[in-house]
């Protein structure tokens, strides 16, 4: 196997809060490979978001180390981008959809290349027709797609997603899940996908990591051997799917 893009070695984050210090995550050993889809599940309060912010370079590990393509992580790394859960706060409300998508690249690329990338990214998420609208004129699912397009326009090696579909209805969610898998196949981007929805984690993931405890640590990592491409109806009915679902519920501590 090729060298991993991400490699965490007993990484941990301790935050100082109200004068005291609190370990949020500890002893994280994790790797992410090219074009891999890694789901991370865990109950709330186990540091899922902290883990993702650490991978995205918004928080520095206070113990252990995180390497991105061999380089020690010290800040937001090149080629890694976070997609946040709260799309309404994460989008620039005063910019059109196209200008939002251009935001990450417009200062680095010539105008023509930038326009091409914006068009391509909007095309990938199916929003070409809404390029001139403002975010508030779109539905929640479309706004989240704008945020995904903004990340895609960077042509990232890794997309880190923090419960991106948690605020969306079930049908929109299913559509976007399939869109992500298609994007992964088309662009060879790796995904680290945080969710509290075990079925979503299994459906999307090549592997599912379970975060548990306080401070959170990785309880187990499950290889998901479901056939690709996945299908919302047939995949979710497979006995293997149900078995993974069962195992993961047990690993998290349900039942």
């Amino acid at each position, binding site marked *: 196997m090729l060298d991993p893009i991400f490699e965490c070695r007993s990484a941990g984050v301790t935050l100082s809060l109200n004068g005291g210090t609190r370990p949020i995550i500890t002893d994280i050993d994790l790797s992410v490979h090219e074009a891999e889809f890694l789901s991370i599940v865990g109950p709330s309060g186990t540091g899922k978001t902290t883990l993702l*912010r650490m991978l995205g*370079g918004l928080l520095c590990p206070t113990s252990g180390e995180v390497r991105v393509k061999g380089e020690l992580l010290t800040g937001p790394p090149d080629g890694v*981008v976070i997609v*946040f859960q709260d799309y309404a706060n*994460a989008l620039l409300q*005063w910019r059109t959809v196209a200008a939002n998508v251009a*935001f990450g690249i417009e200062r680095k690329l010539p105008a023509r290349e930038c326009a091409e990338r914006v068009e391509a990214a909007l095309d990938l998420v199916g929003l070409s027709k809404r390029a001139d609208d403002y975010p508030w004129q779109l539905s929640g699912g479309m706004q989240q797609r704008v945020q995904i397009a903004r990340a895609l326009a960077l042509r990232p090696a890794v997309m880190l997603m923090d419960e991106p579909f948690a605020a969306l209805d079930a049908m929109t969610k299913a559509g976007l899940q399939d869109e992500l898998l298609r994007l992964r196949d088309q662009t060879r981007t790796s995904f680290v996908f945080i969710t509290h929805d075990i079925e979503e984690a299994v459906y999307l993931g090549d592997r599912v990591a379970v975060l548990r405890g306080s401070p959170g640590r990785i309880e187990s990592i499950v290889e998901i051997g479901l056939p690709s491409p996945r299908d919302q109806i047939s995949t979710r009915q497979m006995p293997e799917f149900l078995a993974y679902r069962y195992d993961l519920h047990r690993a998290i501590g349900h039942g």
Partner: protein
Amino acid sequence: MASAGGPARVNWPGLVLFVLLLLVWEAAVRFGLMAFEFFPAPSVIAAGAARLAREGILLDDLIHTLISMALGWTIAMVIGVSIGLLLGFSPFARTFGLASIEVLRPIPGIAFAPLGLLLFGFSLQTELVITVLPTIWPVMINTMGGIANVHPRLTDVGRTLRLSPVEIVRHLLLPAALPSIVVGARISLGLALVMVIVAEIVGNPAGLGYGIVREQQAMNPELMFAYIAVVGCLGIALNAGVLALTTALWPASTRGTS
């Protein structure tokens, strides 16, 4: 901001009532129901305004008031936005500065009129002292709040898209705070007009405010009322103008602001 976006709509019922009130006033004076010596009918006031306009006095006074107001407002904007940004960005500055602001802010601007007179006599400077001080607060407070209330997620977005700290301020925090700053600027402009008129009444003998006093002392109530009406119209025109300008410059900024 109900009229944001499309062309301003005319509030016909409101206008009808206003015209009706004017007619009642006119009739009351004509038929002797209200018989005060210094209470002219609207038609007489209108004739007085026309005379002032013909003689060119009104335009001179209007220009003086507009220039004083623009000067005072501009100075207040520069000071208010600068200090507001400092306070918004720096919790340290807030810790030290807010107490002073809370002490100074409730002092009515007119209380500084004697100070202005003492320093600058009956002059434009006095007018500016009286105008600038109270006009600073709305834009300063709104600028500070606008910056301090930007959702922290926008900074996360800037960092994950690998913007520099300066770029984050310039491309994310300032634009996000702009609607709030614009609201503060509008409130300040309305206040600047009020304070300029006050300053011209008590301080600098010039402009529309002085016109009101001058005609009162000259026992020309129709001209006094004409000046008052012009001041009112100026206020309406300024607010409409600023609103139209804001909507034209930043279509997104007038949506959902309060």
